[in-house]
């Protein structure tokens, strides 16, 4: 393709322009604001790196970063294990039933995060308490009222929402595993377990690249589920980084400082995603 072709750039222009207006210009503006004292109304002073220095002694922000990382780790594992299991289940030859299951597993993904948050809030607060009242099992009591149940509540919600989506990705890769390889494995006497680990698994590694990338970056950026389910409570102990940034900007009205947090957060996400892509790419096997 001739990159100097005039029409090439002409067709690209609308997208480039849109990106420039909504992404690139605001990004540089944001970098600028992170060096200032800004209340959303006017820039009152230029403070250099003060915001960034302050950030490293902000316990709540550092805590929220740690919490987000723990949440991401737990949910990435949960989503991928569950997503892959679902995919294996529905790629068995079960006829119409497997289509039904695919639909059911995918359904949570069609519901928005806020609504999901409220649904699960109802489940944890009302349904769980109901179960506890009836059965007397203390495990179901007091969910979301302490840090631990708040954390697992968020993980459960997010795993439930995302695993159906990740399942779809795994399904497409599993369907692409050549039949003759599986047949050959069977003839060689491999059982189901062996043919999964030795044949299917290495061939669907590219699916892990995609799925891990999607789940990791989505888990880090969770906001609406967090807001609707726990809203950071109790005592700010389930507050994720995004919520901390939002609150600094729109509740404390300290936009400059919030912006510097956002930039640090962006750098962290970028680094993690790049490292993850690099590692999983290396593991991919060519057929």
């Amino acid at each position, binding site marked *: 393709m001739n990159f*100097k072709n005039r029409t090439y750039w002409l067709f690209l*222009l609308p997208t480039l322009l849109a990106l420039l207006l909504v992404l690139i210009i605001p990004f540089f503006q944001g970098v600028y604001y992170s060096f200032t004292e800004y209340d959303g109304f006017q820039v009152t002073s230029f403070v250099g790196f003060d915001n960034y220095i302050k950030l490293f002694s902000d316990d*709540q922000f550092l805590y929220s970063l740690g919490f987000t990382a723990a949440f991401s780790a737990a949910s990435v594992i949960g989503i991928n294990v569950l997503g892959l299991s679902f995919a294996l289940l529905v790629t068995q030859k079960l006829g119409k039933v497997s289509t039904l299951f695919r639909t059911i597993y995918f359904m949570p993904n069609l519901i928005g995060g806020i609504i999901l948050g409220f649904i699960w809030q109802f489940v944890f*607060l009302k349904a769980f308490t109901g179960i506890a009242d009836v059965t007397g099992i203390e495990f179901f009591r007091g969910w*979301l*009222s302490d840090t631990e149940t708040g954390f697992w509540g968020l993980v459960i919600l997010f795993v439930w929402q995302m695993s159906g989506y990740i399942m779809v990705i795994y399904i497409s890769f599993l369907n692409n595993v050549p039949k003759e390889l599986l047949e050959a494995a069977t003839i060689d006497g491999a059982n189901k377990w062996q043919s999964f680990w030795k044949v299917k698994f290495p061939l669907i590694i590219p699916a892990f690249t995609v799925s891990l990338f999607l789940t990791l970056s989505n888990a880090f950026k969770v906001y609406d589920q967090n807001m609707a389910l726990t809203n*950071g409570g*109790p*005592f700010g102990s389930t507050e994720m980084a995004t919520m901390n940034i939002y609150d600094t900007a729109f509740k404390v*009205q300290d936009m400059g400082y919030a912006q510097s947090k956002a930039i640090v957060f962006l750098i962290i996400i970028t680094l993690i995603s790049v490292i993850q892509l690099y590692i999983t790419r290396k593991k991919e096997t060519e057929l």
Partner: protein
Amino acid sequence: MKFRLVFISFIMLASMSLIVACSSNESGDNGESSGQGDEVVVDLFNIKVETTDQLNNLIDIYESENENVKINVTTVGGGQDAPSALQAKFSSGEAPSIFLLGGLSDVEKYSEYLLDVSDMESAKTAIDGTLEGASMDGTPYGIPLNIEGYGWMINKDIFERAGVDPSTIDSYDKFVEAVETIDSQKEELGIDSVFAFSAKEDWVVSQFSSHFTAPEFGNDVKTAFESDELNFEYGERMKEYTDLFNQYNYQPILSLDYSTSVEELFANDRAAIIHQGNWIVPTLNSMDESFAQEKLGILPLFVSSDTEGKIVAGPSWYWGINKEKDEAVVEESKKFIDWMYTSDKGKELIVEDFKYVPSHEGYDTDSISDPVSAEVYQYLLDGKGKIWANNQYPDGFFSEALHPEFQKYLGEQQSWEEFEEATSNAFSEMR
């Protein structure tokens, strides 16, 4: 080289057209509000979502009486988003003519736009002291929207069945006694717990704290706004109240939200006391008409003195008028607000339709339909109302510092002293 030139000129052209589009939009707006001679357009920014219908109704009536005026309402509601939306309106050059101000920090923020309202009829009839919440250097910049009051909202029926007459509770000790009496008969009364304090909601905690911070600030809005420290002068009493309700509260207290507290426990006679204000009356009415009429009562808190109980009562929102608009628009805005609070029709709507506790004099107390609102009005007139000190806290203080720290205390994660210290530090830092 050539393609680059074309590329650059395209971008130039596109951005030019954007700038043109923006500026033409602006001139269009001006033309609309001033150019058409007889019709004046007033933009009103409303935050009170719960009375949107009533406001629209009032505006329809006003417009039918004043045919040359057109009032456009924008309603944005719900907690923190409304102030941001208002700010966005100002930054984008679409400043409204009439808008709502929360506290002195809003007045300060919009001071260059705000009209001095001292010569308005509705400012003169405002109840003494209510203008202070929107005054800077003695000049009022806002008309109070209504009066809202809060304290312990009680279910009088449960009190009476337990053999406690709410009207005899005139000291802190008697209050504790009443709570213990009710608690001892939980089974017979069929209640889950005495209290249903919703510690999940940051604003409930913030309002609760106001009982104890208002006297520290000399019960003066301006002092509260200017104070750069919070010392918990009445922290001891606050701790006593906190321990009391935590002991007799529906558990887990930390995840008890507004709707469970009010709509499920309190409204269904499953809890006797909650910390709320008269704004729950419409909600209660929508569930059970008789509840607010027959069972609902309000009890004060005994803070600065053991025997004199006070509630918090005062205006929480103010109407501000944008003086930067055309003279005709400003005039019509003033007329509209005056009409709303001083004309007979306006007064009638405020009390009977909006069901507000009026913030202005010259209203018939009997026309306030529910007993609690009338009680709140009476407290205020008797000088037993405290200011909404929580409205003058630094931005974000209650949600980012006070509420989490308070929850830590409730959840036994820290001692009361640590709570006071952490909260005081945050207060000074955020101011």
